[in-house]
């Protein structure tokens, strides 16, 4: 094995995805959770780009472009939600989001 093959990229993408999911599962700050989600999206994008490179067509890259667009819209809405929640509760810890239980 002399070159960087697709498996390397996929492996990297999987590890990045797992780190992101750990952030989502472990942290209690809503913004950090949000950052971890973005990281997971990035790892999925990386996998798509390497598929596209491997398959030799542009479809994967186009898909990634759309995922980036969708992510931008989601970030805007998600952060706005976090700010709105902070304004009423003065906290963005997900442990405080329990009003709806029961």
């Amino acid at each position, binding site marked *: 094995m002399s070159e960087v093959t697709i498996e390397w990229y996929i492996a990297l993408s999987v590890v990045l995805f797992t780190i992101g999911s750990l952030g989502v599962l472990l942290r209690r700050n809503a913004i950090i959770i949000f950052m971890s989600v973005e990281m997971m*999206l990035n790892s999925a994008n990386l996998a798509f780009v390497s598929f596209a490179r491997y398959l030799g067509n542009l479809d994967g890259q186009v898909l990634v472009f759309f995922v980036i667009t969708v992510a931008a819209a989601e970030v805007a809405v998600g952060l706005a939600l976090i700010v*709105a929640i902070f304004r009423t509760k003065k906290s963005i810890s997900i442990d405080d989001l329990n009003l709806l239980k029961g």
Partner: protein
Amino acid sequence: MTMNLLVILPVLIPLVGAVIALLWRHKRPLRDAWTLAVMVVSMLASFVLLAAVWQNGSPLVYQSGGWPAPFGISLVADMLSALFVVMVQVVMVTGVIYALGSKDTVVTYPAFFTFFLMLVTGLTGTILTGDLFNLYVFAELLVISGTVLTAVSDDKFGTEAAYKYFYISLLASFFMLLAVGTLYVSYGTLNMADLGAKVMADGERPLLWPGIALLLAFFMVKSAAVPFHFWQPDFHAAAPTPVSAMLSSVVVKLGVYGFLRMTTLLFVAQAPTIRLILLVAGVIGVVFGGLSAIGTHNVKRMLAYSTLAQVGFILVAIGWGTQLSIMTAIVFAFNHSLIKAAMLMLAGYVASRASVKSAAFDIVTGVGKPLPLAGVLFFVGSLALAGIPPTNGFVSKSLLFSSGINSTFYWSLLLIGVTSIFTLMYTIRAFQRIWWLAPAEGIYTKPAGDNLAAPVLLLIMIVALGIWASPLVTAAQEASAWLSDPSVYIQAVLGG
């Protein structure tokens, strides 16, 4: 070719309407009239589409540029998608009517109807698209508009409910993205017809099952099926009434549509396993939803749990997998959309007349006494939900039982028979509390509230479809006959 343009209209009209509604955001009468006109025109277009598809005898395909699939984008209307689009748009029209007569401050927001129309676009698009990646993009549009509409709710839990919904939807998006990735890398296509044909022709490739599982999980989140149900009651109960009436009725049907497509087009050979999963999830949903609905202390929450149970019935019908039971699933989905939208609007109406705007039982007990019309409507709606004639709910339930007897899963039939009684229990209990019991100290009924026009319209449809069920049943029969042979869809898209 001109006929094929019909397919894009139910998506295009609300999309353009949404953007134009933004121009008139500060002229309220103009904006309201525009929204209603757009929705009605769009609904008429979807009826014309259904008629055209039916008359055509095979699916209509909008293929951009006239190129053959799998190149190019395609919107596909077969009987199933056309019927579901009609269902969505009819209910959405009543949603707009309710919102126009609503006293919520949320409907006065300049962009409220823009997001409402985007919700319509997203939902219609996911149902009509013939491409998995387009489905993802449309579903995101649905999520963003649903989140925004809930976040601005008058309910003080609105923001928090929207946040939960947003995160569960992000999770669903991951499922979908990874499903798209695995299926794309395994079969080299995302066109649904092409994918279905390739899966059939090439057999199972190593990543097929992970792809199926991810896609299944995506649609389960969308339909709030067990085990992805936990967010649904919070979200549906805290959204503004016109929005929650849409979410709990037609938006959850996206998942139902997805399951039907998966089992009859995409993964026909793998369908028995998928059906078994749906059957188990459905039965658990029926029992859990029914029991939880009995234990709630809020009318809207009760109805949200009832959605869980009713979607469970539909999943069970899909799970049986016979042609008759698939027809039942379609009829059930259609009828439930009308019933649940009407019931949630009535709950919202009662809440709007209560002294404090809330649908909690403590607050609304006795509020219904001066509101006889709403009481009659709620009672008829309860009958429909529980499946008692002369309502369309009876048609759904009797079809469900006859298709259950035809299939071999007697135990699930017995179970849903028992749980149907739950439905009657909790709806009648709610009726009794609101219209029968005396109000508590300090609780009074406000002189004015939301408008009853939308639930009246829906109830008329509910009774009409109960007495004169044959058009819907025939259409659903046609749809299930088309679904029984995947090559109908595949040939229409790919040609030859």
